[in-house]
């Protein structure tokens, strides 16, 4: 299948010329990444639709690789002249003494055209319909209780059209549509202010609001804030924790996901370097990174290097099976990319990134896991986290948690961070249930943010440090 030239961000003859120019100084690899991003967002705050905004930006980045050197230049000028100038700039940094001029031709057999399965294009939805959605969420959140003092709703949709072409003859495009709504609320009680947050975000169009109720999203945010009004300080010390399915996926993203990115591996800055084939986790742990997962927040047809998204098994029954790879790192190891080359925008070099990372279902029962825990913490919602891949130490925040006493979930706890060591925690996962769920997130690495998904069934970690202020 070949698309009409009008559908491409850059015509094929220009692509070939630009890649040829970029390769003229002896480059082993040259690539164009073009992006056209449009989106809109709406903010409701303090009962008012405070602002609608929309944006449009497009540009292209040209990458040239010679030996171990990468040159990159980006431009907002997608004309032939603009692209040729960027190609020269990128090539100039990675030049060879010998002039190995070459002509690049695109190879029809290497074409990949990703198609969006969107049913309702957000750009075609009337603004007032979007506004009504936020107002409904605001009302639902406030209706939960008179103690809801403040509500903020954020809506956003984005359409990201990308084109990737390289000197191997590849031409790939994708049309990525993401739609989200988030609700943040504040509850006021005798003990002060508490917060709740809930979000609905999918790689899909406006149809998600026909399938899911924004009122439910809003009520959930309110419920969380209200639940903490009488919360007591979290314990301080090492305890067993049970993490409810869904947001706990962040644990795997931080505890081992980043450490399995090949850029860290090749620089020996990960605790998982040289450990493929070894037992790195409890046998109950099977971990997948899957860029094809349904409408996951980290899902796409191709990665940002034009490689088809794929599902990769990282840990199987506790044994490390593989790392995640982008073009550059895979090339060094003479293997193929795993479809994990991603970038925030055309202004950024791609690097190894996760897509949707999740722990597979186990065979335990979620209620029995709690019943089987004498004293510990039940975490029903986790916020963000952070890891040092070199040491494996990570933190992540509990935004809704309860004490477990004698096998029963009892009192709510105030927010606190948990801290642990990735390799140790993976070994300490001693129960995995069968109630898999996912959640969306934004992953930041080296100054670049990309949408990712996380997921996991309810699980227990036999011991982890809870960073509260109360005696454990």
């Amino acid at each position, binding site marked *: 299948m070949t698309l009409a030239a009008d559908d491409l961000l850059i015509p094929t003859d220009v692509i070939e010329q630009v890649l040829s120019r970029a390769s003229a100084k002896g480059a082993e690899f040259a690539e164009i990444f073009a992006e056209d991003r449009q989106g809109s967002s709406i903010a409701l705050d303090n009962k008012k639709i405070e602002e609608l905004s929309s944006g449009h930006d497009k540009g292209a980045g040209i990458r040239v690789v010679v030996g171990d050197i990468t040159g990159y230049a980006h431009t907002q000028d997608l004309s032939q002249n603009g692209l040729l100038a960027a190609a020269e700039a990128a090539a100039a940094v990675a030049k060879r003494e010998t002039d190995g001029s070459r002509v690049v031709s695109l190879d029809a057999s290497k074409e990949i055209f990703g198609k969006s399965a969107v049913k309702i294009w957000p750009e075609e939805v009337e603004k007032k319909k979007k506004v009504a959605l936020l107002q409904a969420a605001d009302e639902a959140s406030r209706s939960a209780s008179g103690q809801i003092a*403040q509500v903020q709703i954020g809506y956003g949709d984005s359409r990201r059209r990308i084109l990737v072409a390289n000197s191997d003859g590849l031409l790939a495009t994708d049309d990525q549509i993401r739609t989200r709504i988030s609700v943040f609320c504040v509850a006021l009680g005798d003990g002060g202010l508490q917060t709740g947050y809930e979000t609905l975000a999918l790689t899909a169009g406006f149809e998600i609001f026909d399938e899911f109720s924004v009122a439910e999203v809003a009520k959930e945010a309110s419920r969380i804030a209200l639940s903490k009004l009488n919360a007591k300080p979290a314990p301080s010390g090492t305890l067993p924790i049970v993490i409810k399915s869904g947001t706990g996926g962040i644990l795997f993203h931080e505890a081992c996901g980043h450490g399995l990115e090949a850029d860290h591996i090749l620089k020996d800055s990960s605790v998982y370097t040289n450990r493929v084939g070894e037992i790195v986790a409890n046998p109950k742990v099977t971990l997948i990174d899957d860029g094809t997962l349904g409408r996951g927040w980290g899902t796409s047809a191709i990665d940002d290097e034009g490689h088809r998204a794929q599902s990769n098994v990282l840990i199987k029954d506790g044994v490390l099976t593989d790392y995640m790879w982008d073009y550059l790192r895979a090339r060094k190891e003479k293997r193929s990319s795993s479809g994990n080359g991603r970038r925030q925008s055309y202004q950024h070099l791609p690097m190894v990134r996760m897509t949707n990372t999740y722990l597979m279902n186990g065979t335990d029962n979620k209620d029995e896991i709690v019943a089987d825990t004498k004293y510990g913490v039940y975490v029903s919602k986790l916020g963000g986290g*952070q890891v040092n891949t070199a040491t494996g130490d990570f933190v992540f925040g509990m935004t809704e948690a309860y004490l477990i006493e004698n096998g029963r979930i009892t009192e709510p706890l105030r927010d606190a961070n948990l801290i642990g060591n990735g390799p140790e925690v993976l070994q300490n996962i001693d129960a995995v249930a069968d109630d898999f769920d996912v959640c969306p997130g934004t992953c930041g690495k080296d100054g670049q943010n990309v949408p990712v998904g996380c997921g996991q069934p309810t699980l227990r970690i036999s011991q982890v440090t809870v960073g509260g202020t109360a005696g454990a």
Partner: protein
Amino acid sequence: MPDLMNIAEKIASDAQGDEQVEAFVGWGTSTEARAYKGEVESLSAAESAGIGVRVISSHRQGFAYVGGLSEDAAREALRQARDNSLFATPDEAVGLARPDGIAPQEIDLWRDKLLHTPTEEKINLAIELDNACRKADSRIRQVTSSDYGDSAGEVAVCNSLGIKAYARESVCYIATDILVGEQSDTMSGSGYSVGREIDDLLPEKAVNDAVLRSTRLLGAKKQKSAQLAVVLDKRVTATLVSILAGTLSGEEVVKQRSLFADRLGDRVGIETFTLIEDPTNISAFGASAFDAEGLASRKLTLIDQGKLSGFLYDTYSSRLAGTTSTASAVRAGYKSTPSVGARALSLLPGDLNETQIIDKVGNGFYVQEISGVHSGVNRISGDFSVGAEGLMIRNGQLGEAVKEVTIASTIQKMLQDILYIGNDIEWLPSSAAGVTLAIGEMSLSGS
């Protein structure tokens, strides 16, 4: 290069009837070089520009941005912003900044020299940094990256109420990340240096910081949970002060989303605690002659000898609160609307240096690094719980290394529990200056 002010003026002059129009036009160029194992690993060079337009009509605000500086881009942004304004809820507080008679100070943050420095020289800085790191200490196992980066940008803000502001700025930095030790006793450390031009950069400092901060943590272990005094390293204090400023945002206060709402005039910290925001201080990394709505920057005292004395406001939040803007609007570039933020915070320094503070504290925990700030600090409830690495303080001296613990308290309590503020103010690449800070009691969670 197109004249940014010209573009901004043209857009603002298109205001129709009672409409208010603001154009924020930005242009920037940047270079980033990364070295690895003595060779250049990557080099990126780029230029980008764009236009962000706010339109307010009948008390309703709309915003749109478009990449590029073409007339088409300007038209598209204006048209979209106008259309967006039709759907907002009318709000009397909505409005653009009005000239308030305060004259901007001359702040020169631009160095032509940086733009004329050959790329080759910039690459060499990264390579030299990498080489210096590898040679610095035998315990260094890996230098994961050594970077040189710079950016130079210009901004013009113009609105139909008479605001006209132009600013330009150049910045450059070097930064390195290293690993020391073997296997399970690996520690990482980072060092950097920041300036307006290359001559400002101090590679030796970057290397020494990275080496000291990583090697002194070798052998780090978890500690037993305890209540103890903590001494915060400069970088950590800068992070804490930035968090504190978030709670002093007039917008969060007026919308009842701050732990300091309704507490103006209250004693919130110890008597020696004075917090100042002064973007006119040229030493500050975030210095600028104007805020992001084009008002002249000014010095503010937010906490005065322990008493809460003021909040930060942009135009909208000040009108909501029935006061005037403190010229505290910030924005992340042409793609975003203004919001309230601090740029140049500092604590009034005390009398003691770091060594003296550690000696006075006697026994406690010296915190070199914190993690999980975005997940562990709640600016509304005040709950504060972060991962920490550092060294125990034993008998007034730095002792054994500590990792994988958290320190926790509440922001409210931390301000009351401050013991000493150092005399070692250092402006860091952040919205706040660093200074050594001792807090009398926090909960350390470990084994």
